[in-house]
């Protein structure tokens, strides 16, 4: 499903290369759940954003479903992202002033879809994330956990196979974190591939993870198959 080959990301400052990611090799099978562990600044977020095509690598390759995403032109990359990848952000990233239903629709809109169909799909996704009763609320009226579920609904709406989560529980209390994990389990049982970047110890207790990858200073420290 996801193959990362010799991935580098660096910035050149005064002619010196500052590596953020250095020679990453990783492969994730379909349906797997992978935890990227590491302290802040270790590069796990950068790795996640390169996998999602939000950022470009300095060299190396990311292949998702047989497509080399990092060299795709914007139009294709965006379409690819809309269809194949769902992202759950640390700070939820819902559009302010737009209700949850419309927020969930956003990934579909660029794909020239009818409004009715888009709303139906969005409502389905909200149901899946157990938040459809708040469909008409705007983000500022929602609690952190509700926002998180909204974000999951948005990540699911286009029915992607790959779900990426960036520090998903960083802004949640323990109760909501547990709820989030049960939601992840549901996704896992649906056969989605999950890649989660986190440093929250709560994920240690996860019973369905396949792999834990520790990243430190831009390198893969060790990878454990669970």
């Amino acid at each position, binding site marked *: 499903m996801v193959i990362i080959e010799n991935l580098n990301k660096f910035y050149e400052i005064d002619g010196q290369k500052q590596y953020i990611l250095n020679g990453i090799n990783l492969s994730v099978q379909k349906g797997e759940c992978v935890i990227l562990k590491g302290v802040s600044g270790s590069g796990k977020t950068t790795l996640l954003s390169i996998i999602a095509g939000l950022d470009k690598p300095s060299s190396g390759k990311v292949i998702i479903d047989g497509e080399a995403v990092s060299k795709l032109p914007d139009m294709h990359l965006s379409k690819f992202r809309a269809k194949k990848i769902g992202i759950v952000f640390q700070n939820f990233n819902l559009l302010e002033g737009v209700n949850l239903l419309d927020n969930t629709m*956003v990934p579909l809109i660029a794909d020239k879809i009818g*409004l009715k169909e888009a709303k139906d799909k969005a409502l389905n996704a909200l149901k899946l994330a157990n938040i459809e009763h708040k469909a008409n609320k705007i983000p500022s009226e929602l609690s952190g956990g509700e926002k998180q579920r909204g974000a999951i609904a948005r990540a699911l709406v286009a029915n992607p196979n790959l779900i990426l989560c960036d520090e998903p529980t960083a802004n949640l209390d323990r109760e909501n974190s547990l709820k989030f994990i049960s939601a992840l389990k549901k996704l896992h049982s649906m056969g989605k591939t999950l890649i989660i970047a986190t440093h929250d110890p709560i994920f240690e207790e996860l019973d369905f993870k396949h792999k834990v990858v520790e990243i430190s200073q831009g390198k893969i420290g060790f990878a454990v198959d669970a």
Partner: protein
Amino acid sequence: MKNNSFFYFLTLNLLKEKRRYAGIVIISSLLIFLLSSVLFISSSIKQTLNYTLKAQPDFIVQNIKGGKVAPINSNMVNKILNIYGVEKVTKRVYGRYFFDDKYSTLIVGVDFLDEQSNKNLETLINSTDLKQFLSKEQMIIGQGVKNYLKTHYYNLEYNFLTPDGQMKNIKIFKTLSSKSAIISNDETIMPLKSAQKVLGLKENKITDIALNVPNDSEWQTVKAKLQSLNFNIRVISKKDMQKAYESLFNYKGGLFLVLFLIVIATFSLLLYLRYTLAASLERKEIAILRAVGWSIKDVLKLKFLENIFLVIFAFILGSSLAYIFVFVLNAPLLKNIFLGGSNLTNFAKFTPVVDYGVLSTIFIIFTVAFLSSVLIPVWKIAVTEPKEAL
């Protein structure tokens, strides 16, 4: 519409930023309102003048003395009648009568015995009243004249003071409608003889002679023949007048437009700065859109359509309000720029004229300025890196 979720999102986005856009729409419509009002007035006057040119004789023959128009002998009419191809030769008597050193009226003498004038007069006043009108020495006055006379308590008649010091009393028969005030506001129509007296002309003297030449291709020859009647004759053709009217109001419209361009340049600059500022506020939002799968092209489309919506909204609003201001409310304040304000108050009503040329002029000038000033900021925001959402 297959794409209507996009449209829905577009409107959602516009309404969400309502406060931010309201200011832009208000200023834009105000600018369009001002420009359209001015151009509507000038094109309306131009159209009315061009329309009334139908009634304008093809040629006017004047007598020039010392560079000024001097009375011409009425026996010149017979000389002109001898030229082949000439038709409807009419005497015209007109001139300014000053009520005091500021206010004046244009006295026009009309030969009511002339069959042609008679027929037109019938349509101007009801034919049943025509006999009554011709029975006495009476006059028809324009709205502006009426207004002036009324403030001086002359409701039924006026005593003109002729240049030789005599009083000439003429009854007021009718007031011309303000609908024709663009050309008749300060006019006083009276019988030819009375006009001659009021203007101090001798009986065989008239102001000038009008004539028609039905065949266009004869115009050059007839003009040459008229010129050769006397060395101090001036011949004015209808085409000269049309051109003069055209440039008279083009001039004002054009001058205003040049000033307006400066205003719109300032507006564009402000718009540019505002959008650049807004771009930094919107970065996060656009980054989210990009992160969930919108391409640069989609964002560009969204932002451009938003602005096109604004432009169209402001354009319809501004130009419709200008239409109401000019053609329903008769452009208070602004009217005097075109009609002047120092003589009799003008009661002109403007003929509603919606000229495609004028409308497209306003639209083009505004769209070009607006869209070109937001183009680069909009692009800058559309290429926001999606990783900024993280």
